[in-house]
């Protein structure tokens, strides 16, 4: 028995490295290919003259695609829209999510059901969310919002033609507010009740408790929410695709939608790839911080 034990132990140790390798190989290889092949192709295409509609025009273009892209007002409009969309949605969802997490942390009858209702929009597919809002909520004559406005004697708003980007921001915020709430509600539950009680004994009001105890406690969770949302929000696509198609004009074209237009509608592979490289760089600026933070957490 003892002999067998030492044998297995020894075998486990020497073969350990090999075993690890063979067990992890499928996942690592597949992910590596999934990452490196398209990435290399995108970078390569971005340096080529490559338009599917003009097959005779080929060859190395150097940085021509980038130069053309950077002088195109559409890129700057799209960058502006992307930043506005990301910034506004982040502000709404993080502030709203924090306040709602505090609210749903309080005990009241039916709290469990209320929580479930409030996080539900996160599980609704983006195309459904966008179309329900576009048609049933924001329709200028038959939507619920215009009906509400009219019953208060206010003029109905034609959301998608007069406030196109705001409309998209509202829809996307509706989808991501529940995400922030879900994460922050989990984080707030580890808040030490005794600490809150002690502060209350010392005469701290609810506002002081929120700013000096709750908010510092949520700091890390909030930064995680911000970074994860940023990565997804930078490339919001379906919501724009089914509502405004980037319009009117370029009013709701973000970087993702611009690349889609160049690639699948204009068939300009070179230009679209240059746009793709820009999107990758933007996302990675955020990603570095997120990965570093997760790494720190992994150590503790």
């Amino acid at each position, binding site marked *: 028995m003892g002999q067998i034990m030492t044998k297995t132990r020894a075998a486990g140790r020497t073969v350990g*490295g090999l075993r690890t390798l063979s067990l992890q190989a499928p996942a690592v290889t597949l992910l590596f290919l999934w990452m490196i092949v398209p990435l290399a192709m995108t970078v390569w295409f971005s340096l080529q003259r490559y338009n599917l509609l003009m097959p005779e025009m080929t060859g190395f273009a150097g940085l021509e695609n980038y130069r053309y892209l950077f002088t195109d007002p559409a890129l700057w409009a799209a960058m502006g829209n992307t930043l506005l969309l990301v910034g506004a949605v982040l502000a709404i969802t993080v502030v709203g999510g924090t306040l709602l997490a505090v609210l749903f942390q309080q005990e009241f009858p039916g709290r469990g059901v209320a929580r479930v209702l409030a996080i539900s929009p996160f599980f609704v597919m983006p195309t459904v969310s966008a179309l329900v809002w576009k048609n049933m909520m924001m329709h200028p004559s038959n939507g*619920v919002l215009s009906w509400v406005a009219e019953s208060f004697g206010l003029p109905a708003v034609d959301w998608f033609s007069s406030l196109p980007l705001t409309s998209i921001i509202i829809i996307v915020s509706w989808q991501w507010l529940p995400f922030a709430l879900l994460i922050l509600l989990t984080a707030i539950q580890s808040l030490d009740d005794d600490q809150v009680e002690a502060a209350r004994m010392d005469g701290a009001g609810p506002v002081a408790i929120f700013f000096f105890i709750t908010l510092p406690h949520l700091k890390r969770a909030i930064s995680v929410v911000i970074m994860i949302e940023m990565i997804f929000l930078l490339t919001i696509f379906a919501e724009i695709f089914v509502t405004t198609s980037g319009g009117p004009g370029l009013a709701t074209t973000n970087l993702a939608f611009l690349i889609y237009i160049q*690639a699948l509608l204009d068939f300009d592979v070179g230009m679209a790839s240059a746009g793709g490289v820009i999107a990758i760089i933007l996302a990675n600026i955020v990603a570095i911080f997120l990965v570093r933070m997760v790494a720190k957490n992994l150590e503790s």
Partner: protein
Amino acid sequence: MTTAKTKTLAADGQAPAVPIPRTSTLSSARTRRLGLTVLGWAIACLIFFPIFWMVLTGFKTESAAIADPSLIFSPTLESYAEVQLRADYFKFALNSVVVAFGSTLAALLIAIPSAYSMAFLPTKRTKGTLLWMLSTKMLPPVGVLVPIYLLFRDVGLLDTRTGLTIVYTLMNLPIVVWMLYTFFKDLPKDILEAGRMDGASTLQEVVFLLLPLTLPGIASTGLLSVILSWNEAFWSLNLTSSNAAPLTAYIASFSSPEGLFWAKLSAASTMAIAPILVFGWLTQKQMVRGLTFGAVK
């Protein structure tokens, strides 16, 4: 359906008003509780309203759907019947099911050995590998749309369920590995050690000990993967057209101006989101782990 809903809401809203034996000094606490209840429920209902309204509209006739908003109408199932008749709803639903569950199964099969070795045979490189996997998730899909589209076109994977399944498997693989790793790591090492003493091979160890013991974790990992694949709308819109289009793409077809059929859109949408909504409610707690890569517990 509507009345039932209103009733529960009303009942819950009134709950604190029911006299609970308490001393009068607590009356300010009671007002506060009532205020909280009203506020909590009001906000929850407000956030949920578009979904509620969509479900309701699905039971209306087309003319009632675009009439002035009203809670009173005679419910009909005609939109549900028509959705299937006109657009072959079940074809799209089947695509969603095959792609979401197929990719989840594939991701789990690839991820389990990997997560096992990371959790139980950690080396110096394990942490680096995990972080690298996470970083592959940071590559924005739109950044690699062009090469993937062209590759798929060249090998005939455009508009096929296989193609979409491959993309979703790889898309969710980092999250699945990561989540399984955290669940496996929570398992006391002694249990597997004991199995090894009794002469179990690695495969036996995984199949007879690890998998049954971590089944709840594996199930919630799988459900998160199903949810993410089911709701994915970037690749499905760009890589499929008619044959392999899942529900996300089918619903998108209602965006055309001539497709202004609100009742049918609502009926189709309700069917498309109902199962996922239930999955989401069931796994919300464990989901936080996967969505934040363990950074929020």
